[in-house]
């Protein structure tokens, strides 16, 4: 497996060019193109502010910030997994041209959205300051947390992409799963404020994304850090999901190519 990962590293030039291709197609070389990526999270933010802050008092401090810190990583996760599902079937033309590691397709989708997410988080920092929230040193954890978040997202994307080659209706099922997952993840609510501790332990264990989003909030808006045990479990789960997805993908790769 290490050998295969090293092989992937040799193809970094291809990854670079594919990511810049995706960004180009998406943004059409314009600044305004980038603004589009904000449309969805901003719209969601205003809806949630209206419902949960104005109508039902959520009691969460700096609610708009709280929402954004959840929505930006969530949008990354949702876009990556949602688009990766059909990445193998959509790129059949390129895949059947010459051999190269095929996990490059989900990988480039993830890196593309990763760039978007990083840009959005940078834009977020002045907003955080405007709210009078100081930037804490916790922000230095960003690279590590992001790596684990990426591993989790990549592993899941590989599983979805593989399954969709064999069962073409998976791409219709994944959006449903993501929609349910969205409500199951603390984006417009604060799980630790509404659950007794025992249930919170289970919840954080079942949904590592909850831990990741809470960590993003600790980093960017000085929110409370999750319990160490929650963090430890979530990081292990991220790593395991990546390994599972990668092995699953590589094991089925040859059969997949025949069926695209």
């Amino acid at each position, binding site marked *: 497996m290490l050998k295969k990962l090293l092989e992937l590293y040799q193809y970094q030039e291809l990854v670079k060019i594919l990511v810049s291709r995706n960004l*180009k197609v998406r943004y059409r070389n314009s600044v305004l193109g980038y603004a589009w990526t904000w449309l969805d999270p901003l719209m969601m933010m205003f809806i949630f502010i209206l419902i949960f802050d104005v109508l039902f008092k959520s009691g969460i401090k700096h609610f708009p910030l709280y929402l954004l810190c959840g929505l930006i990583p969530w949008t990354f996760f949702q876009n990556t997994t949602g688009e990766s599902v059909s990445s193998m079937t959509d790129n059949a033309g390129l895949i*059947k041209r010459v051999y190269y590691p095929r996990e490059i397709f989900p990988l480039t989708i993830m890196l593309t959205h990763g760039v978007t997410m990083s840009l959005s988080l940078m834009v977020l920092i002045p907003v955080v300051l405007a709210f009078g929230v100081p930037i804490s040193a916790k922000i230095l954890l960003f690279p590590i947390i992001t790596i684990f978040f990426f591993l989790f997202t990549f592993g899941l994307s590989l599983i979805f992409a593989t399954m969709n080659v064999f069962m073409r209706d998976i791409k219709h099922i994944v959006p449903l799963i993501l929609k349910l997952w969205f409500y199951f993840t603390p984006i417009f609510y604060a799980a630790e404020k509404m659950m007794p501790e025992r249930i919170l332990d289970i919840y954080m264990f079942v949904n590592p994304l909850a831990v990741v989003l809470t960590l993003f909030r600790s980093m960017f808006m000085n929110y409370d850090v999750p319990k160490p045990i929650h963090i430890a479990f979530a990081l292990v789960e991220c790593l395991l999901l990546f390994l599972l997805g990668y092995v699953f993908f590589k094991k089925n790769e040859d059969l997949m190519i025949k069926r695209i």
Partner: protein
Amino acid sequence: MYALKVKNMGVKFKLSHMKETTLKGSFVRAVKRFFAHGSIKPVGEDVFWALRKISFIVNEGDSIGVIGHNGAGKSTLLQILSGIYKPDEGTVERRGRIGLLQLGTGFHPELSGRDNIFLNGVILGLKKKEIESLYDSIVEFSELERFIDMPIKNYSTGMAARLSFSIAINISPDILLIDEVLSVGDEHFKKKSRLKIDEIRSAGKTIVLVTHSLGEIRNICNRAICLNKGQVVFDGESQEAVNFYLSQVKKNEQKIVAK
């Protein structure tokens, strides 16, 4: 020195995999099978060997033709040689960089011709600098200077084929695999392509050519392999291979007439 060494190679497909399957479909079929046979496992022979027990060696600088009826396994063979499919049995060894030239190109329709040249170059294993140095000759050969900044989706079929051909030959792979594309473009471009192929050949590069045009086999190849139902039925000098193939075609015709 060999460029390609194929030993006892076979590749199989599952017939039930040839159609697109869905979770819903698989479930429905499994239920049906369960009620019909009492088991959810598929019944009957499902495996189809597209190629089997193929062995041959291509020496460096050889130009090999591959001929055979439709469905004999020619294109599958090229995809095996290029490493896209992995053989299910036997081995394939390659020495040098491979270029595969086939219709239905690996272009990204939204990107310009220029970007697609870079994308294809990198996929074929070149560094960005190498592509930059080849860029001008690729564009010049394709005669698409005026359209190179246009998205590929606005290209005509002929223009796209010309660009893909120019990329494949200018990138100068050590082993060039060609799948029925020497007949793209107008007479002028065809002639140019033929000259370029001759140039590549005299530079000592290896060529594997799949085609239905027996004339091309005679003109370009020094050796040819005749495939039938996934097996090598003839391997030898190109003129003899063509004769063998023609006699086979004749036999088949007689069979049909006799029926």
